[in-house]
């Protein structure tokens, strides 16, 4: 067990670091930028990365990658994280959507779309979830009806990240309600700027709007936009979702160092709040969780470097991190006592980072799989326990009981 690169890995790391040092954009205070400004910077950086083949690195050269190993990819990301470059706009598109297009579209379509996506010129979103189909994605209701060589689509998607700046999307719809739910689905790619597509931001409880609702009103798509066979949409979607855990991630908010700092600077009747044993026990628990997660990622990287595929055990990350964020943020707010209610960034400690994460954490416990769904995944896919009793396997979709 050690943390050192192999000689080859070390050489690659040096190459990456040198390139980043020479090419990374100048530091800007991203908090001060509007989203369009940030997007412009991100596109420029993505183009530069693509040129040097530091994006989609594990893809074959013909598709814009460099046939890199997964661990080289990890090394690049580690090094890039030390620079203040704009991030996040391309993860879902290049991590989930474009690979689906590559797997199921005809050559012409691939020719048309892959390169611009790799260069960051066009961004893709994923249109699966619906108001009545969250954890149970296959319960979706958006309908596509064939009309000559076209399909006419009506319905609504929800929780679509980036729909408002995306150019294209992959869209899962129901083409046959008379068969059991998994069998009546079909996948299409769509133009997000086409008539019949309307994007509305979702106002979150945390105040911001990271996600959208997308409404389809008589949206017409060509049959040639179909990805996979009619009725095979669920199989296509599984390919997309398999890539989800690798595409989604990133930092979540303040952690044990920040709350430790807060406690140190908070004066109680008996001295610094950091001297309080109850706080210290909790701090130790947070440290053990946070470091345990970080070290678990190292174990995943080790598996990658040995050519193994990390399995669904990476689901443990979000269960721990989301709940810890909620718990730690709340403890921090309570540490401030009455003052903790204040969210004004000019007044609250750490620019109200804890208050913000307290309002964001509930979303983190839900997005990309709720705590409950992730535990199901661990139980079923890691531990091999039986799936739940399924009452919906052999029932025609139109005959399924539904709520709101």
């Amino acid at each position, binding site marked *: 067990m050690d943390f050192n690169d192999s000689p080859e890995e070390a050489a690659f790391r040096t190459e990456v670091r040198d390139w980043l040092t020479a090419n990374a954009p100048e530091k800007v205070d991203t908090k001060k930028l509007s989203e369009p400004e940030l997007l412009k910077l991100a596109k420029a950086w993505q183009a530069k990365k693509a040129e040097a083949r530091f994006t989609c690195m594990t893809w074959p050269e013909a598709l814009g990658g460099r046939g890199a190993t997964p661990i080289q990819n990890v090394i690049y990301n580690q090094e890039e994280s030390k620079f203040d470059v704009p991030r996040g706009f391309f993860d879902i598109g290049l991590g989930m959507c474009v690979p689906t297009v590559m797997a199921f579209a005809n050559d012409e379509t691939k020719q048309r779309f892959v390169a611009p996506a790799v260069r960051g010129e066009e961004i893709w979103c994923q249109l699966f979830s619906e108001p009545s189909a969250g954890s149970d994605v296959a*319960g979706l209701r958006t309908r596509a009806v064939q009309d000559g060589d076209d399909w006419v689509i009506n319905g609504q998607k929800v929780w679509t990240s980036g729909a408002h700046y995306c150019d294209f999307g992959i869209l899962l719809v129901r083409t046959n309600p008379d068969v059991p739910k998994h069998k009546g689905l079909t996948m299409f790619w769509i133009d997000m700027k086409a008539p019949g597509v309307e994007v509305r931001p979702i*106002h979150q*409880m945390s105040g911001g709007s990271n996600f959208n609702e997308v409404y389809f009103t008589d949206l017409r798509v060509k049959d040639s936009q179909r990805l996979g066979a009619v009725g095979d949409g669920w199989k296509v979607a599984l390919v997309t979702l398999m890539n989800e855990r690798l595409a989604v991630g990133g930092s979540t908010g303040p952690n044990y160092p920040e709350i430790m700092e807060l406690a140190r600077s908070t*004066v109680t009747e008996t001295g610094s709040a950091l001297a309080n044993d109850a706080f210290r026990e909790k701090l130790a628990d947070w440290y053990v969780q946070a470091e345990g997660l970080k070290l678990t990622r190292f174990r995943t990287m080790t598996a990658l470097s040995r050519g193994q595929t990390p399995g669904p055990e990476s689901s443990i990350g979000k269960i721990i991190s989301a709940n810890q964020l909620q718990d730690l943020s709340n403890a921090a707010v*309570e*540490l401030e006592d*009455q*003052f903790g*209610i204040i969210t004004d960034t000019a007044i609250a400690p750490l620019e109200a980072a804890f208050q913000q994460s307290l309002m964001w954490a509930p979303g983190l416990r839900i997005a990309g799989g709720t705590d409950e769904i992730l535990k199901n995944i661990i139980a079923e896919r890691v531990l091999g326990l039986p799936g739940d009793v399924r009452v919906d396997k052999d029932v025609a979709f139109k005959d399924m009981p539904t709520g709101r």
Partner: protein
Amino acid sequence: MNFDYSDDQKFLKNEARKFLDAHCTAAHVRKVLDNAEVSHDVALWQGVGEQGWLGAAIPEEFGGLGLGRVELCAIAEELGRACAPIPFASTVYFLAEAIMLAGSDAQKAKWLPKIAAGEVIGAYATSEGPGTVNPQTLQANVSGGKLSGTKIPVTDGDIADLAVVLANENGKPGLFLVELAGAGVTRETLKTLDPTRSVAKITFSGAAAERLGDAGEGFALTEAVFDRAAVLIAFEQLGGADRCLEMAKDYAMDRYAFGRTIAGYQAIKHKLADIYVKNELARSNAYYGAWALNVGAAELPIAASAARVASSDAFWFASKENVQTHGGMGFTWAVDCHLYYRRSRQLALVAGAPKTWKERLVRQLERRNAA
């Protein structure tokens, strides 16, 4: 043995619920939430005054209804359930209780009738920065009847007419009544976790201040007032926690996944059972607090601490797991879950964080053992 509301109290509680069902819907709450200029629901505040709730526990001689504190607890439970966006706690649990506890006859005669009549909004100002204010850190100072210093945050401080302020005088901590419309008072409304309640920073520079209670007793009196407020707030928390359980249940029953209502999955069933268990433990502790408050029992400090700890825990758990049960919908602004998530934080902080009360509870246990 009678450890429940009486029939009369249940009637009162039921009437309160009817009134609030009509006058304090989620739409009313959201009018305050969504509009930074609106500090509270003025019509509701007026209505609550007309119902006599502001003076429910104020003696008849001072214009109140002279009911017991248990009746006030019943009203508090309904206000909490409705997430009422009004300065009720600041005015009734803090200001009126402080005056009834420590006020001179003249102070009672001057202020209690106005509170009962809805003519005065109150505030109670102790905090001066992050962490719990204590004798070592208290900065506010009264000299020659003039108060100087900064209090932050002060719940309802921007709309209050009269504040109780903790400050030193001649090196001793005391409580002081300060009319906020007077000279030497600057107020700034603050953004907070719960925009349905109004919060301010108040800067005093030579504001006229009149002592409430004995000199040097500022912290002891504050503890005594907070004991009373803690019990009443525990009922608001309980009402909120019960409402969260209802919301979660209603949503789960009506939400289908994999062909079944999600209310039938054990993960959801056991989550709601966990909420129920916490709520019932909180209810029992709150009832004990109500009894102690009502009869002025010596057990009040311990009963109030237990009520506050149990209800804060229950409301926090219920409000966060209500969001979780709602899934993505629960995380939207449009769905009401976050109103209770926010309020649970407001109520947990306004009378001092639960951990402070755990310490207070254990100190009381030690005292009881030593006796």
